């Protein structure tokens, strides 16, 4: 397997290109998501704007950004900015829903106990919004890693090279290796995120177990069914 060093190199670069958008997307989405609580107009505008941005297909966005950012067409910066935009678009929806899910009663109780707005946000709302945000983060992680490979079309050095080079040489194995490597990175990131969730949000497991016990005793399971209302599961392209 003389190609192993090459695959490792490409994988490391692929990971580097994925981490920045995921982290930045998460950070930027927190204030934006919180903003949607302030009123229907804010929520509507933010969600609409995110929706529009997300609709822009990837390769076009990579090549539109040079006109806006002043970068060269074949620069990695375009890739990272575009991926961050997509990450924010997905994440804002999740953080918005997450903050919405924190009950007003809990927030009022915190205020009554003397929490300042800032402390209340960080010590009450944010942790309670954690599980849903984590779910959104996992979606962002997977989508970003899958999308990085399209960057090879604008000269980025990542696992996508295995696709174009494999096609150029009629080497199906090479393309297959690229797909598997991408999936493995996605799996790795997902496991890390789940582990982080267990560490930072330990109460979720207790909560889930309790709910599972109580679920068995309910005749209908509309809540559980509605929970996994899904729809948005497409990979980006």
């Amino acid at each position, binding site marked *: 397997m*003389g*190609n192993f060093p*090459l695959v490792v190199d490409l994988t490391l670069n692929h990971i580097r290109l994925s981490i920045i958008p995921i982290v930045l997307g998460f950070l930027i989405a927190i204030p934006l998501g919180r903003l949607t609580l302030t009123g*229907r*107009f804010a*929520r*509507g*505008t933010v*969600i*609409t*704007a995110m*929706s*529009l*941005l997300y609709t822009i297909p990837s390769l076009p966005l990579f090549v539109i950004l*040079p*006109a*806006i*950012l*002043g*970068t*060269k*067409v*074949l620069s990695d910066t375009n890739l990272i900015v575009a991926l961050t935009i997509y990450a924010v678009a997905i994440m804002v929806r999740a953080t918005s829903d997450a903050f919405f899910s924190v009950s007003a009663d809990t927030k009022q109780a915190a205020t009554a106990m003397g929490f300042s707005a800032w402390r209340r946000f960080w010590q009450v709302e944010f942790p309670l919004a954690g599980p849903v945000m984590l779910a959104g983060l996992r979606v962002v992680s997977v989508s970003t890693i899958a999308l990085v490979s399209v960057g090879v079309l604008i*000269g980025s050095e990542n696992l996508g*090279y295995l696709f*174009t*080079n494999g*096609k*150029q*040489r*009629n*080497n199906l*194995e*090479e393309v297959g290796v690229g797909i598997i490597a991408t999936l493995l990175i996605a799996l790795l990131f997902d496991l890390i995120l789940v582990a982080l969730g267990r560490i930072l949000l330990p109460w979720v497991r207790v909560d889930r177990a309790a709910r599972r016990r109580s679920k068995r005793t309910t005749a209908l399971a509309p809540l559980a069914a509605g929970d996994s209302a899904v729809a948005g599961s497409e990979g980006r392209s």
Partner: protein
Amino acid sequence: MSIFSKGRVAFGVIAVGAVVALAGCSQADPTAPDTGNAGGGDSSQIVVGSFAFPESEILGEIYAQALKAKGFDVQTKFNIGPRQQTIPALQDGSINLIPEYNGNLLAYYDTAFTQRTTDDVDAALTDAVAKDNLTVYSSAAAEDKDAYVVTQAYAQANGLTSIGDLSKVQPFSLGANPQFAELGYGIPGLKSVYGVSDVTFVPYEDFGGPDTVKALTDNTVQVADIYTTSPALKAENLLVLKDPENLIAAQNVLPLLSKSIDTPELKDALDAISAKLTTDDLIDLRNRVEGSEQASASTAAADWLKNAGLL
């Protein structure tokens, strides 16, 4: 009232559009190189580039590995794209050395060039590239030319031996890279030199690679631009049409580099490679990398260098 009321949609669109418009006041052409040879930091570091097809990557590997062995500080940046991207990369310093083909390189700088033989082209090149602060070293005997290629069967059925014979089979489809439609030896040259104009151009992105070959053998196109060192010529029983009017100039491999790294040691090292590189070598190398062996470009390059005593 849905969150997608008309007012909000409008506001959202305006918000996004405003950001784009305000930020989009970039006047700089993203496809042009930076003016002033910025380069990346270390001016003695050699950054070897290549075009986005296997043969160029192999040649890039040959240069890079040979130079490393001679003690140069070498980085690589392969598979950049066609000349329309590699020349700007040289101009802005992202790369400073690339294996080139003398004829097409001259064509890029002087679309009306008349030189056709290796010596004439080489002589004209030094001046042509000088205005970009670039220079070339000696060319190799190894040549890889664009070619008008048909299947043997098609040639026999229609009595085709040279490019001019294509006027017999008009109208037909021709498959090649997008640049071919604009270049002197491409569609425009076919018309002006051989008088063949009723051609439907079908672009392919793979520089005479598997897609183009398949299109030719499947008769999606009747003619294709497949380079003369391609293993497919033999494997698929293809015929290179003769070029009596010299539409396509000599295409010897030679190093194109930035004057900032031009030193006698570098010249010696690269000239040594050019002295040993033959067309048969190119065919062999491509066969190893693109044929059934699927060797990596770096392995094939390393083996060639060892055989040539340069590693």
